[in-house]
């Protein structure tokens, strides 16, 4: 399956709040929290279902910390 969207996640800025995940329209969600923690001790965001991402930026627009950069292929 071809990628439509992709994220660049600033994992060190992420606070693992998970609100972006609730915003993702895909089922299953493209994104999830890592088991690993960053320097601040938070389980940061990572892509768990990379190929499903449509680059809609819904995750990014509700991230309180501006962690997510979104790219979308022009079709």
């Amino acid at each position, binding site marked *: 399956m071809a990628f439509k969207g992709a994220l660049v996640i600033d994992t060190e800025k992420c*606070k693992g709040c998970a609100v972006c995940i609730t915003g993702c329209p895909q089922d299953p969600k493209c994104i999830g929290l890592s088991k690993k*923690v960053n*320097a*601040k*001790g938070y389980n940061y965001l990572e892509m768990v279902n990379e190929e499903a991402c449509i680059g809609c930026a819904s995750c990014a627009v509700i991230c309180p910390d501006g962690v997510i950069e979104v790219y979308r292929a022009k079709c």
Partner: protein
Amino acid sequence: MTEEIIIAGFGGQGVLSMGKILAYAGIMQDKEVSWLPSYGPEMRGGTSNVTVILSDERICSPYLNQFDTAIILNQQSMDKFESAVKPGGLLIYDPNGITHHPTRKDINIYQVAAADKASELGISKLFNMIVLGGFLKVKPLVTPEMLHKGLEKSLPERHHHLIPKNEEAVEIGKGLLTPYHTL
């Protein structure tokens, strides 16, 4: 006897309540006690620490810059408090998330890998009690009976059924204690 302790970590790690249990246990042994938190809920998500003093005499200053014991639970606290341990004093820390381990050679240093253990056992709420166990192993300042009474005092009644679990966690902590550098 006077023991001056700093406990420091992230907010939410149970730093303050660990200190509170110690203080209550101290009272049960008729000691003078003082428990002074770094306050500042106005600063979200920062570090949190508490200074606990147990003493047989009137406690002069509740605010201290040097400690007999530092119990350290994250890197920021390590950076801040390693140097504040009195020469010959004690530093106990959880290695989880620590990138720069302590380097002092004039103090006793122990590790308690409490975070890993707690998540392994699914008792992450009792993380702080495991750490406390490690500390009590090195410095048995309060007896198990007094600790029990301390828990009774510091926990709200509706949580009293959890006291045995807390005590177990303390015992686990005692077992986890690992010397890192001793004099």
